[in-house]
């Protein structure tokens, strides 16, 4: 099956190469930048959904 997949991918032209290249650029850039961030900032960002509500009723998940 591997041989078959490679065969069908044989005529990928410059467009495929260009797309792979741009994807890798975006992907690597994102990873590098993400890992350069401070933990404090990440904690702040991750906590945004949890400190947005001032008027939630008490825990709704308890059994009725």
């Amino acid at each position: 099956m591997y041989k078959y997949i490679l065969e069908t991918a044989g005529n990928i032209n410059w467009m495929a190469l260009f797309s792979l290249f741009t994807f890798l650029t975006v992907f690597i850039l994102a990873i590098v930048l993400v890992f350069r961030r401070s933990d404090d900032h990440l904690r702040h960002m991750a906590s945004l959904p949890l400190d947005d509500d001032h008027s939630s009723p008490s825990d709704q998940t308890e059994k009725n």
Partner: protein
Amino acid sequence: MGKMESFSYDNKIVKWFAYATIIWGLVGMLVGVWAAFQLVFPSLNFSTAEVSFGRIRPLHTNAVIFAFVGNGIFMGVYHSLQRLLKARMFSDALSKFHFWGWQAIILAAAITLPLGLTSSHEYAELEWPIDIAIALVWIAFGINMFGTILKRRENHLYVAIWFYIATWVTVTVLHVFNNLSIPYSLLHSIPVLAGVQDALVQWWYGHNAVAFFLTTPYLGLMYYYLPKASNRPIFSYKLSIIHFWALIFIYIWAGPHHLLYTSLPDWAQSLGTVFSIMLIAPSWGGMLNGLLTLRGAWDRVRQDPILKFMVVAVSAYGMSTLEGPLLSIKSINAISHYTDWTVAHVHIGTLGWNGMLTFGILYWLIPRIFNTKLHSMRWANIHFWVATLGILFYAIPLYWAGWTQSMMWKQFEPDGFLTYPNFLETVTQILPMYLLRAIGGTIYLVGAILMSVNLFKTMGKGNCEDNEVTEAPALTPHKKVKGEYWHKWIERRPVQMLMGATVVVLIGGLVEIFPMLIIDDNVPKIASVQPYTPLELEGRDLYIREGCVGCHSQMVRPFRSETERYGDYSKSGEFIYDRPFLWGSKRTGPDLHREGGKYTNSWHYYHMLEPESMSPGSIMPPYPWLIEDDLSTKYTSAKIKVLQSLNTPYPEGYADQAVADLEEQAREVADQLRAEGVEQENLEKKEIVALIAYLQRLGTDITPEPIVEQ
């Protein structure tokens, strides 16, 4: 920190969208169940044109995608956006316009689709006036969303909002390009692109409708509501950033995997495959991020139905985003395409991911904005198990049906003949699975009804605080910190984020679509392929009106099992006058691309009148109205004129002569029918004549080379 400001959240708009989500959800699922039962008992259409399978199938898909999930998206966005930005929506008037405009569009769809008014583009069936209305409402939503972002009190944009922004941008682009058409009446139009190009743009749209309507906004909702429901932050915020950029970049390329082994150029097919496989990484990153958020809280998942719904939803997201890329591998696609495997796959995504997440969010949200407790947790628990059972009952039989039918299509006898040359044999074999699927859908619907009762009782108990007063510090200008880097910068700049997301999304579209549109070599011309005659053109529009494309493909793939069954494989040059293309995506009935000349005119006549009279055991519904109704030639000239403007080579001034030519050909077809024993008055004026002319033309422009014995 800025000084505290008092303001209120608009809960009324959230409540309205919640009502719409629940009600349209029930309607969409009910139509789906009805369509599913029609596949087993065709008489359930009660011989009524408006509710025959071909017309209610798009009604079902549009209702569940744009009405149920669409309203679910808006409910979640309007609720979470205000809270994440600590600001009321930008404009109450725009919110109202968005809500009522969207409901009016849904209503227009619910009226026009049963009437057979369709562009035939899957998931974009609505005709041009409704398309314009969608664009207006969507723009209003965008202004409202960006207006809110601009007047926010929180410096940074949480990742959920990035997903909302990417959704808005991409859906805008997709909607415009896939609906480019030239109207010839108030309710009809002809697409600008034809054949292979129309197919590529349609599936670029179709795939990304799944990606950017059913997936990215729901991922935004997951990143907000899963932490809320579990009361813990997302497992890894780093992962969520990588998930976002990788996903929106890759998704846009994967469209051609819907067209593997078709007449689409091979390079485009290969691109679709490669990017589909790459999609596994970000998709699973997102799924794991969701599931790992519950690390240390699994004891709560056992007790809390809301978390149960969310866990199954995220798991279904993971399953379908693994299955999708696997189905994009050509050798697997050769088995799965056109079968119920695809339908099962889609429903793991919709019933599992979209449905279960919507239910979880509704159960979490309604008690909160109504300031009360859920009417019955027990009912919610029962709903969870009923819905899960419904998904299993729906999907497993359909997987089985897909595999069975595909294997039967491809099975050969030792002497080289097809084991099941009669397509119908492969259909009757899977009818029990179709029945189980319909029952599975019914079980899922029963669960949704139970939820609706539970939620409406909850609403009755509580009181919605339409304007929830709250306070937050005013936004202070951000001080640039030394060494601050790009991503933190963009998180505070929504306009730049919008532009970044647009560029990332457009790269895929540009590289994939533009060469197809501008390089002539991609669609080799075939000299013998001629435009349709006016009668065939009208017949083709009847084929579109009845939604025949929902069950019949027009694309013979280059496999021996297909060329043996249907005839020569389809060439891209054969479709250059096909506006819209009608390749289809599912074969509940056989492929029709080489249908021309296979049967007599009278066979088609009797088959449309009563399919079982020609094919005993057939599940195709009867179309008696085609025999009874007169063919309208009101727009024939207008259609010819539009097609001429799109370079279809009809002779100059042909529009004036078209109706006369149509009538002459209709007389010829009617005379043949009479010669074959059909007795009916004014036969030449009936719709059936046009449809037969079209069916007899299909695939006859190129004659296969005769096989000469050596």
